[in-house]
């Protein structure tokens, strides 16, 4: 049935369409738009703020070679203040490395189990428990590092102090595991089931299917999961502050205490006069951290996008 032409023309010429529903619709639309772009606004705002606080120092006073190559962080020295971050970068990198060594096998193993073996209730329960692991506040992790891991490491390895690279690495690894697991599981889920079916029909065992087909097909997703885990470990503050010993040294073994970039900011910013060189140097570290996590997350995101476009 078609609408008679005359009626149709009266529909078009109905005049003002701005009734109550129209306004509600527009209002709703704009509100959602603002919510939608708020993330962009906040990220830009934070970036501008951090950059503004640190930029004066970076442009006028920062000795780049010293900043990156000197292990001496003596911001309060009256004679010769120096702002080298090498020790902290090395410490942070060491802790991140250990944390990935702890987290990756566990997370990928857990993700393989959840995605390929577990069924029904087991799978649902595991996913809930892993989410719970992600919800533990970082100060609680720090507490575990301080009160449980510390004496344990002293006992087992017979070392004078248990607040060190090993301790904070294990703690950070456990903290990064849930996010790595969940993203790795998504990567396995994204592998079409027809691949598994095809390989099984060719006579591949479960392990051969995973090893020869699923893992290669999911490798980009796994890489991106690992990168996000690195980003998480790199940027974590409270737990690493409590478990690392906070000593400014370049670690020679996993039993050395270190000081993380993040922990330095957290520990020192509150006691620094606003606008002082020290204050601005801390913000320079902030910009440095921001850039690194930004690059890591960006890379992970690009890799994931690469998968989708295939």
């Amino acid at each position, binding site marked *: 049935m078609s609408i008679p032409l005359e009626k149709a023309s009266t529909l078009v010429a109905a005049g003002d369409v701005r009734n109550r529903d129209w306004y509600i619709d527009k209002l709703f639309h704009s509100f959602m738009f603002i919510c939608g772009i708020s993330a962009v606004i906040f990220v830009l705002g934070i970036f501008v703020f951090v950059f503004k606080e640190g930029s004066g120092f970076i442009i006028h006073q920062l000795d780049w070679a010293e900043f990156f190559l000197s292990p001496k962080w003596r911001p309060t020295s009256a004679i010769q203040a120096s702002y080298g971050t090498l020790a902290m970068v090395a410490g942070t990198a060491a802790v991140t490395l250990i944390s990935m060594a702890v987290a990756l096998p566990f997370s990928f193993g857990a993700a393989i189990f959840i995605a390929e073996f577990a*069924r029904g209730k087991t799978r649902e329960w595991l996913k809930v428990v892993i989410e719970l692991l992600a919800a533990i506040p970082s100060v609680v992790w720090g507490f575990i590092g301080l009160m449980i891991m510390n004496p344990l490491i002293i006992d087992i390895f017979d070392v004078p102090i248990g607040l060190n690279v090993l301790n904070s690495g294990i703690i950070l690894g456990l903290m990064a595991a849930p996010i790595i697991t969940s993203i790795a599981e998504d990567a396995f889920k994204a592998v079409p089931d*027809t*691949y*598994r*079916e*095809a*390989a*099984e*029909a*060719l*006579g*591949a*065992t479960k392990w*051969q299917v995973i090893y*020869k*087909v699923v893992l*290669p*097909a999911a490798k980009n997703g796994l890489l991106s999961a690992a990168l996000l885990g690195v980003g998480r470990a790199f940027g974590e503050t409270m737990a690493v502050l409590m478990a690392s010993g906070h000593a400014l040294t370049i670690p020679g073994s996993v039993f050395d205490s270190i000081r993380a970039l993040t922990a330095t900011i957290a520990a020192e910013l509150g006691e620094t006069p606003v606008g002082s060189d020290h204050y601005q140097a801390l913000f320079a570290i902030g910009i440095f951290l921001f850039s690194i996590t930004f690059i890591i997350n960006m890379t992970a995101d690009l890799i994931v996008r690469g998968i989708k476009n295939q």
Partner: protein
Amino acid sequence: MNKQEIQQEIAIRTINLNLWYGHFQALFDVNLEIKQGIITAMIGPSGCGKSTVLRSVDRINERLGYVRITGAIKVLDKNIYDPDVNLSQLRKQVGMVFQRPNPLPISIYDNVIFGHRLHRPPDVKLSSRQEDEIVEAALQRVLLWDKVKDKLKRKATIDLSLEERQKLCIARLLPVKPAVLLMDEPCSALDPKGTAAVEELIWELRGEYSILLVTHNMAQARRTSDECIFMLMGKVVEHTDTDKMFVTPQYRETADYIEGRYG
């Protein structure tokens, strides 16, 4: 080949096969004898159980996890549901071609050699020359060699047409020398030209392999098969020579289906 001679042996025998998906019974006392070296087609309306029979012969439907079976399926006189059956060995003997071509996301070369690498004993080392020969022979057999010989190292999921992918999926079964090929509507995703090419290939493989082919397309069953099985509601209605079935069907249901009154 002498038709009488190749019809003596039975490749697949099902004995009182009943199958349930959860609480739903999909097969009722299916008794079939699929002869060696010929092409047997299975036809019937959607949901009649023809794919279920097919997917029971290499036990691939066990992936679902809620499948229950009574009765027996004998492939080359061995009950494949015996507890001592090695699934991997069974699937070496019984190759499967799926409805949608499903090459693995690895190179064309690796796709073809995949099964061979799985099944060769770990102490057998092949030179790359020997592997090359196996791959070439398999691709020659499915009439794909000339088209892909310059891009063997490229990913099989990228620049092959559906027809070429399906041929590749057949080619990768051949290096392990299976006795039976199961084909689950192998042409239903292809265009008419591709269908003709793959049908030609299936006919080409006749004699060397026992082929069980499920199809929705009655013209295809008629063109490509020696014997034909008609199934309805999980039961076998009729199993006879293809020529006979399409000219003088024994049962009313078969005749109705063939003439397109339902299905």
